[in-house]
């Protein structure tokens, strides 16, 4: 059992605040992804959980024990580093065995565990090599095997796939998901790649500027962004936004059409819709097509609505040319609204 509790964790480097009072609970055996743009504090939060950095404020609990004053080795964690940190002076075998030897496990046990995890990561034929004789992908596998061999309560990973080429990344991603699901560990995984986050996570914590903006399941984060940032960060292409103002009969005026808005909304709101939730029909938003990008099954149409950039993912049967006038109707149940002041979602 290793539930992770993060209570009011803040971190400052001198006058710069990297994390503002983070609260987060990660359930036992959950796969939590920390997702956010570069510099938003993902690594800092992960390192605080690992004990490689101490929080300026707040508490970290792992498996019911407060750990923020403990050194990393007493926290029951294992970590996969971004640059792998596979020891160059040790063979693959000794790298995987490193933590086990520190725990003073008997040699037979070390041997079983090294062989088992090496097999799991498909590196059993590399055990005698040094890391200088491995490819990036193989080194990555060693780093994961070293963490798994510890049979830790918690595995922390900082962008473990970011140094691999696209194809290898895809392969490792699927493999990691399978291996970690079977290992019954709680996983915290840092990435700035939203596709990776979506495909791996039980829950995603979207971070921005040292805050956690939303922590929810991948579909929830995608469908119901809690804040404008989430909608604009997640999804490729991201959400479309247009200003909206309440008119006399309580509906919202969006670029020339009136839509039913949230009952609790103020006089001004921001209308949001995902590009794939638009259809061509009469009475929609008037758009002027600018760029047409056929993507096979769909065509991405970048247009202008009311002078603002607006994207639609449409069926590729549709014939459009730059300069065409389109009428784009948003699917009513997919329309989202944000408060322009707080940028939070309004329901």
């Amino acid at each position, binding site marked *: 059992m290793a539930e992770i509790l993060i209570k009011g964790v803040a971190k400052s480097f001198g006058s710069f605040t990297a994390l503002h009072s983070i609260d987060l609970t990660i359930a036992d055996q959950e796969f939590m992804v920390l997702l956010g743009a570069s510099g938003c504090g993902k690594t800092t939060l992960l390192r605080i959980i690992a004990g490689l950095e101490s929080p300026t404020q707040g508490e970290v609990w792992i498996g019911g024990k407060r750990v923020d004053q403990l*050194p990393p080795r007493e926290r029951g964690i*294992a970590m996969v580093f971004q640059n792998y*940190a596979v*020891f160059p002076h040790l063979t693959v075998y000794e790298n995987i065995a490193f933590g086990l030897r*520190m*725990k003073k496990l008997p040699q037979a046990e070390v041997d079983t565990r090294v062989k088992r995890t090496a097999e799991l990561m498909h590196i059993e034929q590399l055990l005698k090599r*040094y890391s200088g*004789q491995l490819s990036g992908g193989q080194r990555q596998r060693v780093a994961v095997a070293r963490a798994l061999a*510890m049979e830790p309560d918690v595995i922390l990973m900082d962008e473990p796939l970011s140094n691999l080429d696209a194809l290898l990344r895809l392969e490792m991603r699927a493999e990691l998901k399978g291996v970690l699901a079977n290992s019954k560990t709680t996983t915290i995984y840092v990435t700035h790649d939203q596709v990776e986050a979506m495909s791996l996570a039980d829950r995603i914590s979207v971070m921005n500027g040292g805050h956690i903006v939303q922590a929810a399941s991948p579909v929830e984060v995608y469908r119901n962004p809690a804040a404008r940032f989430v909608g604009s960060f997640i999804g490729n292409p991201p959400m479309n936004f247009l200003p909206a103002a309440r008119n006399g009969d309580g509906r919202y005026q969006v670029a020339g059409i009136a839509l039913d808005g949230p009952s609790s909304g103020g006089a001004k709101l921001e209308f949001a819709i995902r590009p794939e939730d638009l259809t061509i029909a009469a009475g929609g938003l008037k758009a002027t097509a600018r760029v047409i990008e056929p993507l096979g099954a769909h065509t991405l149409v970048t247009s202008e609505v009311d002078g603002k950039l607006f994207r639609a993912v449409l069926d590729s049967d549709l014939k459009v040319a730059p300069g065409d006038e389109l009428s784009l109707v948003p699917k009513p149940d997919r329309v989202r609204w944000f408060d322009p002041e707080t940028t939070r979602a309004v329901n």
Partner: protein
Amino acid sequence: MNSKTLPYLLLAPATIFLVVFFLWPFLQIAWLAFTTEGGFTMQHFQTMAGNWKFWPTFWNTVILAAIVVPLQLVMALAMAQVVAKLKTTRNTILYIFTIPLGLSDLAAGIIWLAIFEQSGFLNSMLVGLGVVDKPILFLGYQNLWVIFIAVILAELWRATAIVMVILVSGMGLIPKEYYEAAEVFGAGPWKRFVKVTLPMLKPSIQTAMILRTIAAFEVFAVVVALGGTTLPVLVGETFNWQFALNDRNVAAAFALVILAISIAATLVFLRVLRTPKGATL
């Protein structure tokens, strides 16, 4: 210019320098040591080895090196660890540690003589504190081991910093991530030192050990300052045969012995502290 010849051209000045100032004198020395009136002979080596002072001289030199160099390694590792951990005062401390490097070995010997001689600091202090009634003759021929210790102290004081400087720069090259990985995987400070610092510092340790051991075999001025001829060492004897006994051939034989043990030590360090293929950063 052809890119194949360029490297050779760039190496040429250094090569010429080495040939003129090292290889040529070496050949001359070898010639002196192995010939008599134009013919090959082992006679000079026999003279050298037959002299009653040869083996004590040889062992004095080797034992001095065998004590000084490992001590210097241990001390330099400790000092480098301290310096590498410092953030703000790092450079100041580094400069202070390296001050003795700026002194010639003779000056260093004289400084330690000023401490140990009969009217030196140590005696003044002992008398002043009432530990002894009258100054003690520390560096007399009856107390060979005191001279030995004095030489060791002087050498430690004088030349440990160079080892430290090499180690500090080597430590700076070890990526922080390896320490963090070791820490996460259960290594405390001592284990991190043994399992990460030491193995990853091996190339620097190798360099430092080779440099220091060769220098230790050439110890001379410090010994002369502290012990005169009471504690004979190889370079001292070389000097003696060349200038006091006017036998350049035997002096050359001594020089070759120093060269031989230096090469032997270098080979040992290259072998023992080698890095396996693929095990580099």
